[in-house]
């Protein structure tokens, strides 16, 4: 039997009963459309999250020391210098810690968040902009000599002094019951520059950054660190650098194998988020697959009706020389084409639907060749699986019984 004739016959019989064929396909259309929409929107969301995370820190390692007795000497400023000198891939290394306190000029006192670290703090901290508008950031010399210097942002300068060119002015910072007089060496871009007038910024704490060494001298209980941020050049360096850092610290602190240090990164967190997300996507897709299953049962039902209705036709075809196999292929072809057309309509609706949903969620839907292939394979499979029983029923009819059927 020629494929072309079979194909035409299947189409003829599908189009002869347009409404019925459409209703039969409905389950498949709904199933495929939901699967496509869920996959496209889900993948779009996953991609959005990945991009956001990567911008945040695809090259960032977060090093933590497990310090149950708060000894505070598991990571020292010396360690940071040694790490930076001996591991070439490390671009920046700094603790990134904050303390709440107050900051005052002669005229004004305000709540503040004090960030402290190495001069690399400017590159690893998300707290303050690293774009200078006045002066300079505190540098290695300031750090090594524990100079009493600080960097504030434009908003802080404005709040304390009423102007921005405040390099050389003194501020008084108090944290943990200790007071420090610090000289401003630089002013960075204001954090709320673009929110001017939006709301009362006087209630928002100011931002101050200073060398960790200076703070350690003045406030000995803050000398220790238990977490450090390390920036490397590329994502690929994250794993090797992480293990080098941990090994070196273990050697320096005689704690090999004690599991004191561990290095994590955003990518691991990202993996976790993506795992949860894909679990969720798969769950919803499974629910949609049940709709497909119901659609398949619909196909089987209609094919069974069709076989009964066309019993005499089948008998006639057999009288004219159709074999069991020919009839089997004819009916199987019909259910496959029915499912495939349903799948195509579902695919189209799914694409439209995911653009609407993704538009509302402000993400870009992602259609993979995989999901299109999935639709084709799945609808064909539904057609074969649910078509085989009715087709066999038709094919195995005895010619004379079929011809006599009323």
């Amino acid at each position: 039997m020629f494929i072309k004739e079979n194909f035409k016959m299947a189409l003829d019989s599908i189009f002869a009963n347009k409404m019925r064929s459409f209703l039969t396909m409905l389950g498949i259309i709904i199933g495929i459309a939901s699967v496509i929409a869920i996959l496209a929107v889900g993948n779009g969301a996953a991609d959005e999250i990945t991009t956001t995370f990567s911008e945040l820190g695809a090259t960032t390692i977060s090093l933590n020391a497990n310090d149950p007795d708060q000894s505070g000497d598991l990571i020292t400023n010396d360690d940071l210098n040694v790490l930076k000198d001996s591991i070439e891939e490390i671009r920046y290394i700094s603790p990134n810690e904050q303390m709440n306190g107050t900051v005052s000029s002669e005229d004004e006192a305000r709540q503040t968040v004090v960030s402290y670290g190495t001069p690399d703090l400017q590159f690893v901290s998300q707290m303050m902009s690293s774009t200078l508008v006045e002066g300079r950031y505190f540098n290695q010399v300031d750090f090594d000599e524990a100079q009493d210097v600080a960097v504030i942002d434009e908003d802080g300068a404005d709040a304390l002094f009423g102007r921005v060119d405040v390099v050389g002015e003194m501020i008084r910072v108090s944290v943990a019951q200790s007071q420090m007089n610090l000289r401003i060496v630089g002013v960075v871009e204001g954090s709320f520059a673009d929110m001017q007038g939006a709301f009362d910024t006087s209630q928002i704490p100011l931002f101050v950054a200073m060398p960790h060494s200076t703070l350690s001298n003045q406030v000995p209980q803050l000398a220790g660190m238990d977490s450090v941020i390390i920036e490397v050049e590329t994502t690929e360096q994250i794993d090797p650098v992480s293990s080098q850092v941990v090994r070196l610290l273990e050697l320096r602190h005689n704690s090999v194998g004690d599991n004191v240090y561990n290095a994590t990164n955003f990518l691991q967190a990202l993996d976790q988020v993506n795992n949860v997300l894909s679990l969720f996507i798969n769950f919803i897709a499974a629910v949609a697959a049940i709709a497909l299953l119901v659609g398949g049962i619909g196909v089987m039902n209609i094919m069974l009706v069709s076989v009964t209705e066309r019993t005499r036709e089948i008998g006639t075809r057999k009288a004219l020389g159709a074999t069991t196999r020919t009839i089997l292929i004819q009916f199987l072809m019909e259910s496959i084409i029915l499912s495939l057309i349903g799948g195509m309509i579902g695919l189209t609706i799914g694409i439209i639907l995911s653009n609407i949903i993704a538009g509302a969620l402000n993400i870009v839907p992602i259609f993979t060749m995989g999901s299109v292939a999935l639709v084709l394979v799945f609808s064909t499979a539904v057609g074969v699986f649910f078509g085989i029983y009715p087709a066999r029923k038709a094919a195995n009819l005895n010619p004379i019984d079929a011809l006599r059927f009323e």
Partner: protein
Amino acid sequence: MIEITDIEKIYKMGGETVKALNKVSLSIQEGEYTSIMGPSGSGKSTLMNILGLLDRFDSGRYMLNGTDVSGLSDSELAKIRNKEIGFVFQSFNLMARMNVLENVMLPLVYGKVPYKERRERAIEALEKVGLGDRLEHLTNEISGGQKQRVAIARAIVNRPSVLMADEPTGNLDSKTTLDIMRIFQELNSEGTTIVMVTHEPEMAKYSKRIVHFRDGVIIKDEELTPELLPEREVE
């Protein structure tokens, strides 16, 4: 060509058994035009279905063109039906969604004949039954007599060795009945072997031989000189 010996066919309905054919023996030669007559329920259709390889029998022997058909598989039987036997049914049994030409081409599709040849042969067969100008019509757009002529074209398109017709004019009026009888005579005069079931002597008189049936047995087998119908006038 057709040679059956002691064919028996038994139907079981619940507890009852009906012997539809009781040791029937019959032989039909190439070029014959045979009518099978008998009252309703006498076993004519049962015999026809067995001769046409649509049904199996319980005992006896059936040789078709020298082949014992009782040992053949379903698909071998399908192939023989396609190549050697042309059927004309009382209720036409045309494919409703196909046009006239496609209906006639269908046996050639199953016979794996390429499209071009299929079309040529189907048109040739349709011209033979006087429907060369109705190729694209759907089967619900033509009259009963025309439908049966399409069915005849379909039956002869694969040049079978025998044409089998079970009450072919049962659903037709007397004028179209004569048209069909005329076509049968023409086909037979060109060499087609025909076996026709009928219960009307009016029809049987156009054939060359009448086999009389009653209660599953042949009661009379007569040769006759057929009454010739006039040539078909051009429509």
